[in-house]
């Protein structure tokens, strides 16, 4: 009898990378569903436009790379989903499509496609849209009015622009938790976002080492440099709930491909991300500049990994030598 050879170990965990992407899509679903309660079916259509176009573009991009189209790996769907979730519910349908096209053709495919990209494609697509169409990007309809014709929407002032203008805000915490204020599709329902974070953490699709330092630093920044005059609690609440900071912390900063893999690197990365995001908000030109901060941060991810690993490895070796465990 002859047998196959192979490479050890011969026992592998039956975990697949696609489950991680599936988890992200599952986490996006309740956010969209919640948005649909406030605005009618339009958020769902925006989301579908984003996801389907991203998958289509990914297929075309893979043809250029002479690879089989990678629909099944789910990365494109996640990119499209994240882009669409940050769009305004009243965004025209071409906006998620344009963002997805930029994300796939300019950010993902040139670096070698799924798993090899240096920058987060969703952040790139959002940066493109923010730069080119900031007017439409930051126009949010008032909640509880189903959207029919997008030319005739009742617009509401978002938290971000209120914070920028330094105007007094009168949102109650309960309203913020259930997302009863103008904002993007997937980022307003804070309670649901937190539930999604718990789900993703529990499924180990995102890392607590990135998420917590990111949120902690954002909170600290909001305490130290408040933009509202009504006390630090209010400042923290409004900063965390405005724009897509919390959403970015859960879905974009923690993107496994573009973030460090070593725990200490992740901590530094999350903390640096928090500082950059808050700087972009307070000093940047747009009411929300998360995507730019994340693009800058992405370039340093391998460095965070290597430097922090070396620091830990050397310390550990030193200790072991001291205790005589290692030669």
């Amino acid at each position, binding site marked *: *009898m*002859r*047998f*196959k*050879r*192979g*490479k*050890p*170990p*011969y*026992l*592998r*965990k*039956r*975990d*697949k*990378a696609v*489950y*991680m992407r599936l988890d992200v899509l599952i986490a996006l679903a309740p956010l969209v569903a919640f948005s649909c309660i406030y605005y009618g079916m339009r958020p769902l259509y925006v989301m579908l436009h984003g996801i389907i176009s991203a998958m289509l573009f990914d297929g075309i991009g893979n043809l250029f790379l002479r690879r089989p189209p990678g629909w099944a*790996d789910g990365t494109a769907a996640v990119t499209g989903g994240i882009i669409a979730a940050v769009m305004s519910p009243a965004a025209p349908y071409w906006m998620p499509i344009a963002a997805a096209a930029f994300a796939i053709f300019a950010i993902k495919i040139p670096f070698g*496609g*799924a*798993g*090899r990209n240096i920058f987060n494609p969703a952040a790139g697509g959002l940066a493109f849209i923010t730069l080119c169409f900031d007017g439409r990007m930051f126009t949010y309809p008032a909640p509880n009015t189903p959207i029919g014709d997008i030319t005739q929407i009742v617009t509401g002032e978002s938290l971000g622009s209120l914070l920028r203008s330094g105007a007094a805000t009168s949102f109650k915490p309960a309203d913020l938790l259930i997302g009863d204020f103008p904002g993007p599709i997937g980022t307003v329902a804070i309670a649901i976002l937190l539930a999604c974070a718990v789900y993703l953490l529990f499924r*180990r699709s995102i*890392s607590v080492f990135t998420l917590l330092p990111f949120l902690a630093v954002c909170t600290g920044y909001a305490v130290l440099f408040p933009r509202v005059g009504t006390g630090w609690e209010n400042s923290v609440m409004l900063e965390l709930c405005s724009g897509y900071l919390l959403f970015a912390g859960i879905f974009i900063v923690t*993107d*496994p*491909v*573009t*973030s*460090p*893999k*070593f*725990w200490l690197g*992740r901590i530094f990365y999350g903390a640096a991300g928090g500082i950059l995001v808050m700087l972009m908000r307070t000093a940047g030109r747009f009411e929300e500049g998360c995507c730019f901060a994340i693009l800058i941060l992405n370039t340093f991810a391998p460095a965070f*990994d*290597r430097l922090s*690993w*070396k620091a*830990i*490895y050397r310390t*550990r070796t030193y200790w072991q030598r001291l*205790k*005589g*465990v*290692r*030669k």
Partner: protein
Amino acid sequence: MALLTRKGLVLPSRIEPAVSQPVVILPADTLRVYLPLSYTGSRARCLLSTNEVVYPGKQIAESADDGQPVMRAHVFGVFAGLRDASHPLYGQLECAAIDCMPSPVSESPAAKNFDKLRPADVLEAAEAAGIIDELDGHYLYRKLEEYRENYCDLVIADGAENQGYASSAWAVMNESVEQIWMGVQLAALALRATAGQINVRLKRNRRRPLARRINNEKAIFQVRRRYPAVKLEKNPWGRRICRIGVQACLALYRAAVYGEMHGSCVVTVSGDAVKSPRNIRAPFGTTAEKLLEICGLKADPVRLLSGDVMTGRAAESDRMLILPGVTCLLALTEEAVPAHGVCCGCGRCVGVCHAGLLPFEIVRRVENMQYEQLASLRPDTCDGCGCCSHVCPAGRELSDQVSSARDTNSRIYSSWEEEDEI
């Protein structure tokens, strides 16, 4: 903090049902066994002529290089010719085929007095019996001599099998834990060290009776449950450790006291293609075919592994020989290796690596041919445990690549193929 320090994996235990069955003894009487002329790959000349009678202790080969151990037979039989065999652990071997006969000598040799043995006697016995340590495949007498020169304080018998299937160490201990413990004491005597403990990974109800049999509660030491059990050069109190397999300890005792050759070992035959998994004591040189025959197959195996699932090597055919170092034989049906993908960045490989490396980064350097940066990532501290490949959701061959980076010692690879573009 626990999250940061708990490296390694918890593997599913599949030692049942082999572990609760008594050991099957496969007598050499009617078998044809194949004895290697040399384990080390050095050239050796066979000293036997056709139909010559072979008996335990008879020299069968003469090595072309000086300083190689003398190869001796461990069975009664008739020499039937030479054969080449490939072995997953030892590579290509030239073997002498011997048709065994029942031993004409019926009574066992007189036992020496255990208390009167001197260190030199132990080393001599280990050399004469040709004992090979199943942990690393080295000759035991060489290992002992090396440790004796470099000073060592503690001798440990390692029976901690924590990869899932193998239970041969437990079977051997269940048979004769007293003799193993005496073997540890003999090794300690030879090294002028302390007989430390027997490392096991067993449930309390299996561990307790062993400790009672050797009247020493502390001697049976439970290693951590996670795979791999970390193997330190020194223990946390700075004592240098010599680690010997339990089967080698038993063989050392039998050799020093009874003058027996190291001629057989206990092998766990298991895997999902095997009908009734058992522990079998088989003479060295038996083919795997015979062992599989005893246990029966319920499906056609796709792979045959010599060793346990995590670190075992795949054999090409079932004519593979049972030699020292083979303690587990697995016949598996399923296709374990998933499709290869690109890294999705989950970081699980970093989380499980007990050596504290960045497997994904090392592999990326290898793939991008940045060999000059490899050395600083310390692939040389990888012991090939395979945890990183086990957890990788993208199904990458991490441990294989890290091991190859380690073995080439970060020198530039010279593996250009003909059709590679430069």
